[in-house]
């Protein structure tokens, strides 16, 4: 009898402690992260025209054969401006080939102008004014960077600008692991 009524008084504490644990876990997560459903799926067929004044198209063929990064950006995007010096560093270090998708430019001159002023870290840039590639890739904002493995499968999507910390903690380890797998040739 006494135990029963005691239980009534302990239950709120128990529920609260459970909630506190949930909140603790919640603190380590980011609610704004929308997981990409394309992870471990093959890259959708891409064939983007070049930017004004250039001649190379960006196609799926460019993104197969080795581990590559695809960065979605726009000259209108403030966060891309912040990320840009880091992308130049990636280009300079030459560790991973970097390709770009210039998304939603209103004016065909804006993209080339921005790249000329700030510098061009990309091997090839595809022009995507109508969001064809963006929709196929499930882009939810800019900048976003995809890690594509040698078989053209999307392995990771970085939402938001990259920096040294994110690179060292997340991106580079994934690239290294993918390269290891490529060497071992397990073809997953």
């Amino acid at each position: 009898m006494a135990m029963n009524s005691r239980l009534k008084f302990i239950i709120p504490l128990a529920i609260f402690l459970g909630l506190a644990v949930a909140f603790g876990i919640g603190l380590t997560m980011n609610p704004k992260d929308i997981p990409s459903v394309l992870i471990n799926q093959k890259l959708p067929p891409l064939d983007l025209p070049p930017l004004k004044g250039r001649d190379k198209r960006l196609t799926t063929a460019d993104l197969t054969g080795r581990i590559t990064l695809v960065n979605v950006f726009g000259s209108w995007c403030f966060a891309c401006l912040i990320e840009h010096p880091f992308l130049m560093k990636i280009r300079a270090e030459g560790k991973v080939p970097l390709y770009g998708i210039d998304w939603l430019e209103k004016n065909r001159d804006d993209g080339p102008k921005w790249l000329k002023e700030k510098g061009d870290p990309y091997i090839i840039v595809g022009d995507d004014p109508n969001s064809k590639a963006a929709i196929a890739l499930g882009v939810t904002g800019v900048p976003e960077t995809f890690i594509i493995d040698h078989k053209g499968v999307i392995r990771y999507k970085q939402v938001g600008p990259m920096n040294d910390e994110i690179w060292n903690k997340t991106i580079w380890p994934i690239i290294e692991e993918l390269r290891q797998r490529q060497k071992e040739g397990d073809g997953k």
Partner: protein
Amino acid sequence: MIFEIGHFALIMALMVAAAQAVIPMMGAAKNNARWMAFAGPASYVQVILVAISFAALIYAFVSSDFSAKLVVENSNSTKPMLFKITGVWANHEGSMLLWVLILSLYGAAMAAFGANLPAGLKARAIAVQAMVAVGFYLYILLTSNPFIRLMPPAVDGQGMNPLLQDIGLAFHPPFLYLGYVGFSVAFSFSIAALIEGRVDAAWARWVRPWTMAAWVFLTFGIALGSWWAYYELGWGGFWFWDPVENSSLIPWLAGTALLHSAIVVEKRDTMRAWTVFLAIITFALSILGTFLVRSGVLTSVHAFVSSPLRGAFILVLLTIVTGGSLALYAWRGPQLKSPVLFQPISREGALLLDNIMLTTGAAVVLLGTLYPLFIDILNKFSGGTDKISVGAPFFNATFVPLMIPTIIAMAVGPMMSWKRSDLGPAIVRLRFAFVAMLLAVAAAWSISSGGSSVLGPIGMGLAAWLGIGTLLELTGRIKLFKAPVAESWRRFRRIPRSSWGMTLGHFGMAVAIAGMAGAGGWKTESIQVMRPGDVVNVAGFDFAFKGARQGRGPNYQTTIGTFEVTKNGNKVTSLYPEKRNYPASGIPTTEAAIHTLVTGDLYAVIGNKQKDGGYVTRLYFNPMVVWMWVGSLIMVFGGAVSVTDRRYRIGAPKRRRRPAVQPQAAE
């Protein structure tokens, strides 16, 4: 220099609070009168120190001191003076300082107005209040210090989000905090009572006015926020079930339950453990709200910029405060059980039902708010990728149906007597309310012409039931039409203020529900591109667009549209909606033009100019909106009247000073 004084004063306030937390508590344990008496003066010193600190921060904003990091991040030299001041609490650090200022203010008020409290209870309660304060001072000083300098100083500030540069929104946080933080008093009294091991009618009588005051402020704060959203966001909506909005609603529901539960303790000396539990939970929910808003755990349009450290600190604080108090409750709670019984059909039964409904409502809203987080956690461990958001459809399907029986019961409860009552006579007394309800449903149904939602007519019906039912209780009490007018008048004048509180509170709720039913149930909306000379008809009103011109404000540029509104050829009003652009932040805002009629609001919004010279316009007729604000004010007024009831100040009984004997509650 003044800025540093503010910083120093805050540190000293922490030290005073630490002393205030320990000395009176030990004094109460040892029955040392001098140590217990330390509580009062300590709380006064604490509040003065925090006030100095807050004043220093205001000074930094008002004088546009751009060597202060907070001022640089949140202010700008072109910002109007009023918003320089209100900008002090429009950011995380400043608003936390306001939070502790209010906490210490309540502590000092407990000391100042607690003349007829027994020394032990008073000392313990004020000590608990100080314990909570210590936690928050540490939080501010260690993770969210407003007094950080920026070297070298900036030339100008980054400005404040233009959405916040608004009078309604400027005063929304202070009232909300006076509300949430006010529930700390009931919390402190509950902890003190648990430590002492007894809760009685006298305790309830002390706790109620504090809870009522907090409730009054919280109701006003929520209504203010809702009103702001209505006129500023440009869609005519007033509640979005956003996690931060829910964080204010949940303690409000719990606080309302607490108010009613305390009545039962006071009048019948039962439901004691439950009331203590509610008091703990209500304040815990307030702190939980603070956690949800500032930790980044939930996505919300309201959320402050967060950092994991701040979130972690508040979580620890929440765990200590809530976990500690619930542990104390688990240990001491069983001692509070009362032998008093009552029949289910009685006023106690009605109040218990009300409590169950309100608490369930609060739990439902809490569940809906936290559900996305729970799913995310589940995904983390199971590798799933479902991401969900919970919004209006969930709450409309769960919370609203729960409130329907609650509102029906609200009219019946006051009609019932204590201990045991009969349902029949109560319902018979309400027959006019029943008729009114049917008429209202019919009228609403025909006006909305079958309409989009069945909730509109249901809401109007409930509003009529509750409103007329509350009036019937009043007329029954004064025996209107059953006794001579003089007798009725005599009874009217003798109605105690706390009863007026109930009448006004319930009636105000009815009016507000009518407003919500109308505004949610059958609003008319029309979106189109208009060129000067175009006329659009919305709900019987003709909106004629006369064109738009450019203008300029102190820190913004604006496009002002002109609408002439007529009905059947008669002029109703002119409307001047604006679309403003604030260069400092680059954020545009819409200023809707609203004309309020008793039956509804005419609401016009002007959007972007199109290439062909036309403008995108949104025109609305929002029925009954003003009833929501009026209803809220009536509730707030009723609560304020109740707080001033003489019983709480004079005649609250002193406990007999014989610890061996259970104190008797004097009626």
